[in-house]
């Protein structure tokens, strides 16, 4: 059957999504799909609505028009309990990490484990330690977010987004504040998790090395015209995007 087949290929389908704050339209009529197990990069200039798009996709902002479909189920047309179930498949890293400041890094990561799947505290601690080790923060389990640097907070936030092994992970500027080596390591981790766990990643970033290293599909949001001005694998857009702004954006990485 054709329809089921296409559902297997794509996991997320954004259909005619218009995002607006009051009368101000951030982006108009966005339509794209994200492949299952893909790493999808959202690019765009500052203020073009990249983070806003993420907030719409994870259900924090209601679209002015359109919907976001997950495996064929429309998020905004679904009843509240179905939305909650869909959200259970998401892991999210916010800009600035959004770690709870009254808990240690380990407690931050253990929180969804103990609250949602009811594992024991000691096992949750072991899982948290593993996730922290994966992002390069072994030994920082008992530090509070206020006691580590911004880049470390970001990595701990990534570890928290991975705590339940979610199907889809949304990352908003994961390499902000990271040195090039840590950023590279983060890219390796993302590729490895996609490879071994089949996780789908939707990454908002303008780190060009990352975009080319991990992105197998992407869109470009134009903040001046409020439309999606390009869609496709970043390496193809670099050579062949019809929009000169997109080529200029991507070439900065190759020809500094």
């Amino acid at each position, binding site marked *: 059957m054709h329809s089921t087949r296409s559902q297997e290929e794509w996991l997320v389908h954004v259909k005619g999504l218009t995002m607006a704050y009051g009368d101000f339209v951030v982006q108009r009529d966005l339509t794209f799909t994200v492949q299952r197990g893909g790493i999808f990069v959202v690019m765009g200039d500052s203020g073009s609505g990249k983070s806003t798009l993420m907030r719409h996709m994870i259900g924090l902002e209601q679209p002015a028009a359109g919907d976001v479909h997950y495996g064929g189920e429309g998020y905004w047309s679904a009843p509240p309990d179905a939305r909650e179930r869909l959200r259970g498949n998401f892991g999210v890293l916010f800009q600035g990490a959004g770690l709870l400041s009254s808990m240690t890094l380990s407690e931050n990561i253990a929180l969804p484990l103990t609250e949602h799947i009811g594992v024991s505290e000691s096992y949750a601690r072991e899982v948290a330690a593993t996730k922290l*080790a994966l992002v390069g923060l072994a030994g920082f389990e008992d530090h509070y977010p*206020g*006691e580590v640097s911004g880049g470390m907070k970001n990595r701990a936030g990534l570890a928290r987004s991975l705590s339940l092994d979610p199907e889809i992970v949304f990352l908003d500027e994961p390499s902000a504040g990271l040195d090039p080596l*840590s950023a590279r390591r983060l890219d390796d981790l993302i590729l490895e998790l996609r490879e071994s766990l089949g996780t789908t990643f939707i990454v908002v970033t303008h780190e060009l090395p990352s975009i080319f290293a991990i992105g197998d599909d992407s869109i470009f949001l134009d903040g001046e015209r409020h439309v999606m001005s390009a869609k496709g694998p970043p390496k193809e857009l670099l050579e062949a995007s019809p929009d000169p702004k997109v080529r200029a954006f991507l070439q900065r990485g190759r020809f500094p």
Partner: protein
Amino acid sequence: MGGAFTSLSRQGEETLKVRIGGEWHLRGQVPAPSEVEEELSRDPRLRRVLLEHQDLGAWDSSLVTYLVTLAARCRARAVDVDASGMPAGLRRLLNLARSGAPNVPPVGPRHHRSIASVVGVWATSMAARSADMVGFLGQTALAVRDLLIGRAHYRRADFALALEHVGGSALPLVAIINFLVGAVLAFLGAVQLERFGASIYVASLVGVGTVRETGALMTGIVMAGRTGASFAAVLGTMKVNSEVDALEAMNLPPMHFLVAPRVVAMLVMMPLLVIYADVFGMMGGFVVAVTTLDITPALYLHETQRSIALHDAAVGVIKGVAFGAVVALCGCYFGMRTGRTASSVGTSTTAAVVSGILLVIVVDAGLTFFFYAVRM
């Protein structure tokens, strides 16, 4: 395929073979590395753990957690772990988890359990805090002086906003509270004075009580809860957002830019608010006296006029200014000393309100005693 399992077997004298299989899910039951540890403790000759997989189905981070935890515990016992028999993806994740652990700085102080250390930490921190408060008082005085002689960096719009926030927006609350306190005073007086046939002195009681005491006191307390809290919360949030650092870096002293306008706004507005509060307090007494006691409006007003002297009003206004200074200083002090986390804003707001109210009452007692001593 069945659930997650591990099976242990010996391979020679020194090697423990751990076979891993089944479906490994965070949400399911998975084996714990402790059984391997127990085996290692039982036989100290074991120097090496060999990992192999057999009928390994789907796995998630529960298996990664198992392997990372096992590797860490083996390392602690100086036992080698050989993971070359595991799937490539797992090996790469294990390597990622093992690599690049930076130098871990020690965690900050956590809990002081013994009573002696709690008392000691409290006492030394109180001493340091008191000294810090006095320093802040001095800095504020200098900043206010700079503002008054026109040498401070601040935005007039901010000052106007502070005036409005401290004064205008507080009017309804100050009016209601003082009106009701005046009415309560009148009832209190009426019950006692009626027994001596001296009901008419309700007017004096309410008049003098309001003007000398409750008008200023109630306004001070309202200000501590309302304005002091808001000063601390706003300045604290600015601190958390690095806005205070940004001002400092731009050579705009936060004491000039943030603290002085707020303190001056409070000092300007408090006398006006106290006079306003006095009017409403006396109105409360008037309404009670005229409606429930046999006193005519004209008589009540006359008696009020007769009993209050100008110096009574001055006492109230002076107290009000003192309360305003105390509240503004507490609010700004705790706001500017906020830490860098979300919860520290709450802590400093609470501290500003609690110490504001406490100090208002303490200052009130002191001033009352002083005015009694100088017969004012």
